[in-house]
């Protein structure tokens, strides 16, 4: 039973402010993913929760208690580091048992708990090995084991999968999710990979340049992105953003279907539409000049521009298509219910 809340947390290194006031409430057993481009402050935020970094302003509370001045060792938090940070001179057993020894657990119990943990992570056969004798995936598991074995109240993960190859990454992603469900421990997971974020998180926090762009469930972020940044960051391939002028006009002068609702707004507008929400409609005014096709198997991504302009657009069509099987210029229809409107100047959703 652990909740975490951040209250207007800020962080500066000298005059350089890297976290500009983050507030969030994390409920018990929740799996939160902090996602954002590299250098946006994800690790810094995580390390402040861990106690490895001083908090410049604001409060970090665990179970309602302010922990700003508690040492990392007094917070009962376990963390998995990006480079795993395994103790190179200790065996896998000793790595996992380290925290238990500190907690003065009895020898018998240490043995039993390490063995249990090793079983859970399929590390049973490797307990006598040193970290350098393990593969990347196994090291990752040892790091997980070290976190799990002490039954902490919070798990923190700092891009733990980024050093693994693609296949192993998908496998470990599922494993982490399964373990977190099974153990029910409140977790914060940091990644720059939006697919990882979407699949893992109960809720996502999109961080941009030290500010929270949006906090919500993956579906909320996908369906109602609060800014152009979130719209383009979440979802793969990313959302098309097309400038729209007076009277529903696209850059090439074509008029978007009047069924697409346009908000009452003065100023520059942008229309956001995901590639998978665009259909072919031969009779449409919106002409699309095809430049390239990427076959992904289940669907095909068509890259091109709106005819008569240089505005790029990506369309995702179900099934397999090639440049030859399609006309050079096709008519498109934007699904009205899936159109998003943004203020071009501020990037905010309208």
């Amino acid at each position, binding site marked *: 039973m652990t909740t975490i809340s951040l209250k207007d947390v800020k962080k500066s290194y000298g005059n350089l402010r890297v976290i500009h006031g983050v507030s969030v409430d994390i409920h018990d057993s929740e799996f939160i993913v902090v996602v954002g481009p590299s250098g946006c402050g994800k690790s810094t935020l995580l390390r402040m929760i861990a106690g490895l970094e001083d908090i410049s302003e604001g409060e970090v509370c665990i179970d309602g208690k302010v922990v700003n001045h508690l040492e990392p060792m007094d917070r009962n938090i376990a963390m998995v580091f990006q*480079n795993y*940070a395994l103790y*190179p001179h200790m065996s896998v057993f000793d790595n996992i048992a*380290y925290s238990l020894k*500190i907690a003065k657990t009895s020898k018998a119990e240490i043995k039993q708990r390490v063995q249990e943990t090793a079983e859970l992570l399929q590390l049973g056969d490797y307990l006598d090995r040193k970290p350098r004798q393990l593969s990347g995936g196994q090291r990752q598991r040892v790091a997980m084991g070290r976190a799990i074995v002490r039954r902490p109240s919070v798990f923190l993960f700092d891009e733990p999968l980024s050093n693994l190859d693609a296949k192993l990454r998908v496998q470990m992603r599922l494993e982490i999710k399964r373990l977190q469900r099974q153990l029910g421990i409140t977790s914060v997971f940091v990644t720059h990979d939006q697919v990882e974020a979407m699949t893992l998180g109960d809720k996502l926090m999109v961080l941009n340049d030290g500010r929270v762009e949006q906090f919500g469930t993956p579906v909320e972020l996908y369906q109602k992105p609060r800014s152009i940044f979130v719209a383009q960051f979440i979802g793969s391939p990313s959302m098309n953003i097309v400038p729209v002028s007076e009277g529903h006009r696209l850059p090439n002068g074509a008029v978007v279907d009047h069924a697409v609702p346009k908000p009452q707004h003065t100023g520059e507008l942008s229309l956001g539409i995901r590639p998978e929400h665009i259909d072919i409609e031969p009779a449409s005014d919106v002409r699309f000049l095809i430049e390239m096709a990427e076959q992904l198997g289940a669907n095909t991504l068509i890259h091109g521009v709106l005819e008569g302009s240089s505005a790029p657009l990506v369309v995702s069509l179900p099934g397999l298509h090639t440049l030859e099987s399609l006309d050079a210029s096709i008519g498109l229809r934007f699904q009205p219910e899936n159109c998003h409107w943004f203020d071009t100047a501020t990037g905010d959703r309208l």
Partner: protein
Amino acid sequence: MEKRVTFKGWLLPLLLITPQVVVTAVFFFWPAGQAIYQSAFIPDPFGLKSQFVGWGNFQFIFTDPYYLASFKTTAIFSLSVTIVSMGVALWLALMADRIIKGAATYRTLLIWPYAVAPAIAGVLWLFMFNPRIGVVSWYLDKIGYDWNHVLNSNEAMLLVVLASAWSRISYNFLFFLAGLQSIPKSLVEAAAMDGAGFWYRFRTIVFPLLSPTTFFLLVVNIVYAFFETFGVIHTITAGGPQQATNIMVYKVYSDGFVGQDLGSSAAQSVVLLFVVGLLTILQFRYIEKKVHY
């Protein structure tokens, strides 16, 4: 795969190694050969002729209670110098590793003593502890302690240990600091998250990972204490009082050049030659397998 430079001919490589070979021959092989040769003779005090005695000189020194005492003195001295200088250096390095602001100044200041020649360092400490005019002995006198290393053997030993250790701290500090900084921060952080306090982390993570550095310094410092502390001993105690600080290297000098017993002195040099050889082997062994964990 080994990366090495290969030369086509043999003239250039020969030319390149000649200076080193000449220096080694003139300053090492020749005197070493002389020492081994002379250790088998007893020259008369005027150096006019010498008499062959075979192992005689060695038999003499290994039954000489003064020489055996010098062995013990050397062991105590080297061990104390090594422990004090490495201990203090490690402690300073731990502190320096933690601070961020002003670290550069702090490091520079700590490196200065290394630039002081052993004999000068000896004089420095000699002045501070001079029984009559030394500033430290004056303060000791104030608190009721009568310091006199000229008469008291333990005090003499303490003083030469301090002076020798002091000039070595900088060197050890640099290596320890480099060693500490090569330990990934995340390991120490992981240990902190696992619940380890500063000392527990030091004992279980930092110190073991520092062991290659520590071992290297151990050998280097023992070699230093054995052979390079001559200047300190010479300026502060000249081996006295009652031979209390007469370490092996100094005894070679005092027996040979002061006592004019060249045969025994040469035999002692040969013993030292063996010690150097042993320490060198130890060190090369270490360099071969750098990683101990």
